[in-house]
């Protein structure tokens, strides 16, 4: 069954394939132009689980959606991971959420350490009550000179918790395993149990630095499920806010990268400039992270003429400032020596791991939801894609620089021509037995929300996917055969979300 970004279909139309055909279809589609954008489980009656696969075709801006049934009597299915690495985390998630075994999965460990949704025995005993995720085995390398270094979950800086287990030979990393799950809050089930206002707040808290991205995706799912067409002006304001969020985070990332490289001036300037963009969000929404802007049906804050003029004036200044600071950073030989050739992911590897967002674009993957699956503001205003060539830390930094410049140009172009009209339409009731999928290009990459309603028009399953879910694996892989002292810089060049992964 085919579906567009932001589209709605009747759930009954989603085909159910036999196990063998399901597997073959996924493999066939992914071998051609498709990629696995989502793969998740859904509870059916009698303890059966329906596995839904969504394959995206970036060229055609279309998704293919189909499913298979795993019965309660026989809770297992052949794993796709050995042939399709992109499915790796998805299958671990399914195994944990529904206590189904993906047979032949090469590294079947839980992701978030919670009891399953099916209410049967978990695949791992006491998983929900055992305190530390670190009690599960780590991939190990034998040898007299091999040593392990564990970092976290409590870190020296003020960052989120996560455990990093390095297997090293001297200063060289042989293998890195990243163990997350410390931030699991159970947002997915909560989204189906709470009302609209509460869920809006929840969606803003999926990843605090991507409040607008995730709340925008949530709102669009609700609008698609109810068939509400929101006013163009509210779409445009959402787009403006999303770009401001991207600007703040990309500039902050460049600052953090230069701090980790030990280049202080650029770090100090970027830190201040990040504040400038957050202040614009504050002026627009009353919150520096844009919380409270997007609600199902539109946005809650409008921009008047004075504000638009003020934004344009400020953004023109910020653009000049950013140009000079990024020139300072990217022309410094000592900085380039630090960035170049570090943590390389080739284009083929990136495709295999299914990387998204700036990390994928740095490895020449032309994936940008704003272009491939344009909705809302981007349907009428084109933004060029920013690609890197080398797939290293430099490329990931450079892609950010390009995206900042392009977002600034984009904002300066569209702000004076925002559509007029209302900013809010009341949301119609959700249609029964519907399915809607929404992708939004957050600053880290594609955010995907899927909503499925039941016979009464209530949400029965809400699936959230943060771009970090794909990209953490890329970070772990790019560290192989690198120096352990280069890890912080590589990590910062990805800057992934812990809570977005842990949900």
């Amino acid at each position, binding site marked *: 069954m085919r579906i567009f970004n932001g589209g709605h279909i009747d759930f009954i139309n989603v085909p159910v394939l036999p196990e063998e055909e399901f597997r073959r279809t996924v493999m066939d589609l992914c071998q051609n132009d498709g990629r696995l954008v989502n793969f998740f489980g859904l509870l059916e009656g009698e303890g059966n689980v329906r596995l839904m696969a969504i394959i995206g075709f970036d060229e055609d801006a279309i998704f293919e959606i189909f499913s298979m049934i795993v019965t309660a009597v026989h809770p297992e299915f052949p794993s796709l991971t050995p042939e399709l690495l992109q499915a790796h985390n998805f299958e671990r998630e399914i195994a944990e959420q529904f206590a189904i075994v993906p047979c032949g999965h090469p590294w079947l460990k839980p992701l978030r350490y919670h009891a399953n949704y099916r209410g049967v025995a978990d695949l791992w005993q006491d998983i929900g009550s055992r305190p530390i995720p670190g009690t599960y085995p780590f991939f190990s390398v034998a040898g007299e000179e091999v040593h392990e270094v564990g970092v976290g979950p409590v870190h020296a800086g003020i960052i989120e918790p996560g455990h990093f287990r390095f297997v090293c030979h001297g200063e060289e990393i042989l293998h890195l395993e990243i163990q997350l799950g410390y931030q699991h809050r159970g947002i997915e089930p909560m989204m189906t149990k709470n009302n609209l206002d509460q869920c809006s707040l929840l969606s803003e808290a999926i990843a605090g630095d991507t409040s607008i991205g995730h709340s925008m995706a949530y709102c669009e799912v609700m609008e698609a499920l109810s068939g509400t067409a929101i006013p163009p002006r509210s779409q445009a304001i959402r787009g403006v806010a999303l770009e401001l969020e991207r600007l703040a985070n990309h500039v902050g990332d460049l600052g953090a990268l230069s701090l980790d490289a030990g280049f202080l001036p650029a770090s100090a300037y970027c830190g201040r400039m990040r504040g400038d963009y957050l202040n614009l969000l504050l002026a627009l929404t009353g919150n520096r992270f844009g919380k409270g802007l997007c609600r199902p049906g539109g946005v809650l804050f409008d921009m008047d003429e004075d504000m638009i003029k003020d934004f344009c004036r400020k953004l023109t200044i910020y653009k000049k400032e950013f140009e000079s600071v990024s020139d300072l950073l990217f022309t410094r030989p*000592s900085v380039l020596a630090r960035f170049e050739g570090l943590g390389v992911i080739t284009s083929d590897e990136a495709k295999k791991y299914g990387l998204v967002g700036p990390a994928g674009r740095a490895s020449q993957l032309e994936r940008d939801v704003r272009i491939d699956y344009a909705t809302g503001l981007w349907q009428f205003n084109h933004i060029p894609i920013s690609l890197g060539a080398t797939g290293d830390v430099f490329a990931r930094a450079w892609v950010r620089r390009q995206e900042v410049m392009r977002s600034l140009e984009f904002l300066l172009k569209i702000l004076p021509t925002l559509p007029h009209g209302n900013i809010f339409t009341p949301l119609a009731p959700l249609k029964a037995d519907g399915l809607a999928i929404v992708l939004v290009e957050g600053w880290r990459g594609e955010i995907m929300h899927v909503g499925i309603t039941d016979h009464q028009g209530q949400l029965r399953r809400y699936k959230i996917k943060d771009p970090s879910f794909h990209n953490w694996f890329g970070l772990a892989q790019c560290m192989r055969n690198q120096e352990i002292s280069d890890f912080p810089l590589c990590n910062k060049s990805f800057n992934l979300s812990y809570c977005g992964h842990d949900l």
Partner: protein
Amino acid sequence: MISLTFYILLHWLIVLAGAPLFLGVIPRVKAVISGRRGPSVFQPYYDLARLFQKKTVYSRTTTWLFRAAPIVALASVLMVSLVVPFCVFKAPIQFTGDILLVAYLLALARFFMIIAALDTGYSMEGMGASREAFFSCLSELTLFMNFITLALLAHNISLSRMIGADIPVSWQMAGPALLMAAGSLFVVLLAENCRLPVDDPDTHLELTMIHEVMILEHGGVDLAYMHYAAGIKMFIFAAILVPILLPWQTGNVLQNWAIFCGGMMGLALLVGVVESTMARFRLNRVKHFLLISFALAFFGFIVALWRI
């Protein structure tokens, strides 16, 4: 005897009072260059005062080695300081070959810091210790090479004479040699004291640290000792470098002292500027940097040999 005690105490007073100020100037310079106001130049004094008021916590895996390291480190650098002249304040202890005492007391301090880091059993401290041991091997080589050049020019192997009154003559006789020695001593100063581009004193990332990761487990008074020892070590290196760069001797004691103090501040400023304009090296490039400084020292030595 009483006068010797007096001179020793006076010397220690200068070191103990001056070292934190030297350390305080650098962050201020860095802050100003990057457009911030930055902490007060007296911040290291406040930090030390705070740490001295704290109690010390020890991990159960550590032994007496861990507790001895801060004391040995501080005591060693204080002993070293007695051999180093501070312009008008002559070194209280001078003897032929005291230069070896300088090098080996510094090595003793380092040895205890490394062994204390290993004593904690923390994998990251072990990594820091291994890096420290490796890089100090290289920088010690450079240090000795420079000492040989200076000794050759001064015809003496006592530190006070090597950086003493003969320096202006040496500049005329073998200027290039001294220039190269000064250049490579500056690199040694950066490397030995864990400044950029070798180590980053401001980073919070354990995986990239060298010196900082070795003192992660120290707290309270012990940490104050460690910080103090590191500060004094840097002060000593600067005090060795400044008379080479600013060898002018006026008849006036106050003017001489002003030149020395100005030179020390200037050096702190220079370190701040270097740290602001450079990113840190990748760890596997540090050895190249240190070997280049050795090459510089070695060429200085050859020039000195040739000119003498």
